[in-house]
């Protein structure tokens, strides 16, 4: 980059004052001027019409910035809605690849696995048919019992966390515990048969 693209533009007043201080500070170095150019071009290049980086353009008032800010906020809100409405956003295959889970999700997963192994599976072996529906009743439903043990990460409500993230994680953990039991039992069956044959 370094201005070789020939995209130098007139910086606005605020930027000029900042850049002047920068150039003062970097006067001791040999390539102080180049640094200044890089700063300018970076800001200009990252800009696109209608985005917040139009700081680089001259004559941007406080009002326009505020408008852009509200637009961005609206966009964020709509993204969150999409995230919440799409139930298949967080599928089983994503849960199995553990590095894709955030640290809080992994902690919650561990808690859930321990709870399933030690407490839940010995009591309820077949989940009720509509177990995946969210319900806030603590201790009355599968969801309520599990969610009472977890820490909900920032930016999620309990409902959105269950529906978008944790339902799939729980399902996967449950399937692991169940299939482990099946494998153990089938191995035992094979063992007892062999025992009968050898006797």
């Amino acid at each position, binding site marked *: 980059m370094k201005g070789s693209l020939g995209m130098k533009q007139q910086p606005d007043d605020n930027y000029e004052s900042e850049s002047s201080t920068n150039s003062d500070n970097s006067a001791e170095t040999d390539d102080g001027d180049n640094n200044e150019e890089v700063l300018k071009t970076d800001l200009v290049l990252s800009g696109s019409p209608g985005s917040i980086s139009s700081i680089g353009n001259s004559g941007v008032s406080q009002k326009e910035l505020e408008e852009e800010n509200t637009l961005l906020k609206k966009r964020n809100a709509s993204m969150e809605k999409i995230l919440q409405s799409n*139930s298949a956003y967080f599928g089983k295959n994503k849960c199995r690849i553990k590095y894709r889970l955030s640290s809080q999700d992994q902690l919650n997963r561990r808690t859930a696995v321990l709870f399933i192994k030690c407490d839940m599976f*010995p009591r309820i*072996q*077949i989940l009720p048919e509509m177990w995946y529906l969210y319900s806030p009743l603590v201790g009355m439903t599968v969801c309520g019992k599990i969610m009472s043990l977890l820490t909900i990460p920032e930016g999620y409500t309990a409902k959105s966390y269950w529906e978008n993230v944790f339902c799939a994680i729980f399902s996967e953990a449950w399937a692991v515990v169940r299939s482990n*039991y099946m494998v*153990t039992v089938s191995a*035992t069956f*094979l063992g*007892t*048969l062999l025992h009968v044959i050898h006797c």
Partner: protein
Amino acid sequence: MTDDHGLILINVREWDDEYKLPEYEDVLEFLKFVHNYVIPIYGTKNMRKWIKNNPDKTVITKVTATSIAYAVLVYESRYKVWEENIAIKNKNITRAEMRREKRVELPMYHTAPGTKLKLYEVGWTSEGRDYYATLSNIFQSLKSNQKFWDNLSEHWVRYESEVLKEDLIKEAKIQKEVVLDVGHYDEQQYKVDFMAEV
């Protein structure tokens, strides 16, 4: 283990006699079943922990009616599939040939392997669910019969001493070795002089 209809533990399931308690031979099959198929639901490690924490109780007191019902359901549903798998394994053929081998048997109360399930569907059929409910009711009523269940736990103590004798001896040997190893160390080495620190 199964009867003509493919059912197991009929001896215990249909125990109606309120006045007569079962003998050891009557419930031996049930105890074996609990040992081999019900305890894995709890996990062997967890069960050992529980036994250590509750030395005055037996496994029979810990086991729930639903867990026995589930073990029975899984066994009855799958034993034919397992037998078929074992028969295929015993043919001494390669893995690729094993996969190509035709399988006739299907799980009785579960969807066939390879069936595409709906999101978060469990796979048990409605028949299986009903059967699980009836089984858990049967074992719950047996468990509520306090005399019967106490008698079972007495038999479990005998079963442990007879059948699990070898395991117990092994464990005892390991514990002895550990104790002997600890005995080699000089206690003086680990003595902390609190006064010196002051």
